[in-house]
C-alpha cells in the first residue's frame, strides 16, 4: 500500500495534538522538571510523526511533495514548529512553542478542510536538483520570519507595560538568520532560472514580490543597525510579513503572467 492524502488526518491530527500539548505544558505556570521533559518528548514525537508522513508521501509520489500549495503547507507546518521548538530550547520562550504549535495546526487544518487537486506529474522545467533546496530554504526563511512577526506583535502589544529588550534581540536574530536563508533561496532560484531559461531574473510577479519582501527586511536590518527601536521600526516586521504572504499566496492576484504559478 502506498500513502496518500487519505492517510493524512490519521498522522497529522495526533502530531498536531502532541505539538499543542507540548506548547501548553511548556506555558504551564507550575512547571516541574518532569513536565518540561514531557513537553520535549511530545514535541519530538509530533515532529517524528509528521516527518515520517512527509517521507512516506514523498516515496509514494516518487517525487518531492513540493509542487502544490497543499504540499508546501506540509513543509511549512513542520518547519514552523521545528523552528519554534529549536528557538524555544535556545532562548527559553515557552509562549513561542505554543504559538508555533497553534499556527502549524492551523496549516494542518487548512490542508484537512481544503484538500486541493494533486497530481504525480512534474513539468520538465521543475525537474532540477535545485528545486528542493530552493523551496525548502525559502520555507525555513518563511518560518523564521513568521516567528519574528509573532514576536514583533507581542512587543507592540506589551510595549506599554515596559519594553522587552531581550525579546527585541531575539527578533533581530531571527530576522538576520531568516534573511540569510531568504538570500540563499533567491540565489538558488536565480542559478536555476539561468539553467532552465537563460535568465537569472525576469521580474515576473512572484520575483517582484520576493524582491519587495527582501527589501522590506533589509530596511528593518539597516534601521536596527543604527540602534533604533521605536514603534515604526517594529511595525516594519508585520508589514514585511504581509509582503511575504503576498509573494507566497498572492501572485495570482496581480496582473502579469508568472512562471511560479502553482497548479
Amino acid at each position, binding site marked *: 500500500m502506498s500513502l496518500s492524502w487519505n492517510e493524512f488526518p490519521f498522522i497529522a491530527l495526533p502530531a498536531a495534538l502532541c505539538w499543542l500539548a507540548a506548547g501548553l505544558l511548556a506555558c504551564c505556570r507550575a512547571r516541574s522538571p518532569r513536565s518540561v521533559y514531557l513537553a520535549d518528548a511530545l514535541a519530538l514525537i509530533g515532529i517524528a510523526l509528521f516527518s515520517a508522513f512527509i517521507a512516506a508521501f514523498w516515496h509514494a509520489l516518487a517525487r518531492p511533495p513540493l509542487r502544490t500549495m497543499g504540499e508546501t503547507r506540509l513543509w511549512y507546518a513542520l518547519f514552523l514548529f521545528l523552528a519554534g521548538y529549536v528557538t524555544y530550547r535556545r532562548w527559553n520562550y515557552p509562549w513561542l512553542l505554543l504559538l508555533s504549535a497553534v499556527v502549524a495546526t492551523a496549516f494542518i487544518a487548512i490542508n484537512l478542510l481544503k484538500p486541493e487537486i494533486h497530481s504525480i*506529474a512534474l513539468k520538465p522545467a521543475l525537474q532540477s536538483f535545485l528545486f528542493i533546496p530552493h523551496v525548502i530554504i525559502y520555507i525555513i526563511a518563511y518560518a523564521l520570519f513568521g516567528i519574528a512577526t509573532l514576536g514583533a506583535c507581542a512587543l507592540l502589544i506589551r510595549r506599554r507595560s515596559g519594553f522587552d529588550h531581550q525579546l527585541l534581540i531575539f527578533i533581530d536574530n531571527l530576522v538576520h538568520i531568516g534573511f540569510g536563508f531568504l538570500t540563499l533561496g533567491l540565489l538558488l532560484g536565480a542559478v536555476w532560472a539561468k539553467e532552465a531559461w537563460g535568465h537569472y531574473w525576469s521580474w515576473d510577479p512572484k520575483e517582484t514580490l520576493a524582491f519587495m519582501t527582501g527589501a522590506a527586511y533589509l530596511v528593518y536590518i539597516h534601521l536596527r543597525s543604527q540602534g533604533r527601536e521605536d514603534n515604526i521600526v517594529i511595525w516594519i516586521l508585520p508589514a514585511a510579513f504581509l509582503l511575504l504572504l503576498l509573494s507566497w499566496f498572492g501572485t495570482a492576484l496581480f496582473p502579469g503572467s508568472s512562471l511560479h504559478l502553482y497548479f
Partner: protein
Amino acid sequence: MTRKLWQSPWGAPEAALFVAAIILVGFLLQLAVGSFDFALLHYPANLVALAVLAGLTALGVRMRNSLLVRWLAGIPLAVTLIVALLLFGLCMELMPQLPRLSAQTPDLSARLGLRTLTSSWPFALLYGMTLIALGITACKRLLRFSRRNIIFLCNHLGLWLLLVSAGFGAADMLRVVMHVDTGKTEWRVFNEASAALEMPIAITLNKFTMEEYPPNLTIIDRQTGADLKNTQGFFQIDPKRPAGRIGEWAITLDDYLHTAVRVRGEYSASPMPESTPAAKITARNLHTGAIRTGWVSSGGNVPEFFSVLPLDDAHLLTMAQPEPKRYASDVTIIPKDGVPIDTTLEVNKPVAVGHWMIYQYGYEAALGKLSNWSEMELVYDPWLLPAQIGMGFMAVGALLLAWNGANMGQRRSAR
C-alpha cells in the same frame, strides 16, 4: 538645539528629499526624451560608464571623511533608496509591464515609463545612485578590513558586482531563438522583421524525442462538453494505484498501455511513433451500482485511436492529453571556428559553447512527440562570470549571516 533642514550633518529628511528629487528628474527626462536605452551601454560604452562609476566611487572613498560622503555611504540614504526601489517594485506589480511601447500615442502611465519600468529614467537613475552609495560603502569597509567585516563585505560587494554585471551587461546580452527542422542544419535566426541574422554557431537537429506522463481521466458533461475536473476531481493513471474515484464513480484501472495503437476496436501495445496511451477501465456508480467497462484513450494525433467510455446519459469518461515528462533534441553543434559537438539539449540542461549557452526551447505543441522541428534558444552573455562571482560572494555572506545572526544581536546589545 534641533538641526535645520540641509544643515550639516545630513540625515534622513535630506535623503528622502534627495531621492525624491532624483525620481522627479527621472520622470522629467522620461517625458522629454523617452525611455532610458540600456542598449546604449553596449560594449565598449559600458566600460566607459563603468570607469566613470569607478572614478566617482574612488573620489568618494578619497573624501570618505567629509560629511557629504559619510551621508552618501550612510544608512539614511541606503534605507531611502531601498524604500524607493521597493515602491518601484510595487508599481511594477500593479501595472502589467510591457516588453516595449507601441508607436501609438501611449497614455500618461506609459509616457512616464511606468509600463516599462526597468528601462525608465527614474529607475536607471536610482540604479546608478544605488551603485555609487553601495560602492563607496563597501570600499570604505574594505579599507578597514577586519574579520568582523567579512559578512558585511560579502553581502555588499557581492550585491554591487551582481548589480553592475546585470545592468552594464544587459546591452551585451543577446537572446535569439533558432528553429531547426529534423535532419536539417541551421545557422540563421530571424528577427521580428523576418530578416535573417547569421550566428557563429550552426545546429543540426538529428532527432527530437519526448517522453510523456501517464495521463489523467476526467468526466465530461455530454451536453455542454465541459470538463468536470474542478468539481468532481480526476483520476491520475498510475499502475501502482489502480483504484480511485471521480465524483460518484469508483474507478478501477484494469489495464494500461502507455504506447498503444487501435486495430479493429482493440488496443494493443506498439512502439509506433503515432502510438497513444490507452486504459481499460471499470467504473462503478457508488449510488446506483451501475458498472461500465471499456477502453479510454486520448488518441494522440490519430483520430481513429480516440475513445471514451459513456457512463450515463449525461456523462462520459475521457482521457486528457498526456503531459510531457521530458523532451530533448539530439543535436550536432558546429561552432564557426571549432570542432562539432554531438550532444543532447534538454530543459534544465543547457550546453555552453564559449560565451554562448544553448537551451532546449520549444517544439510543435500540437504534434507533441511527433514534432518534426525543435527550437533552441541561444544566449550570449559575456558578463555571466562577474555576475556569478557576485552571487558567490552573496551566498557566502548569506550563509555567514544565517550562522552568526545571534552573535550580531549580542554584539549590538553589548554596545
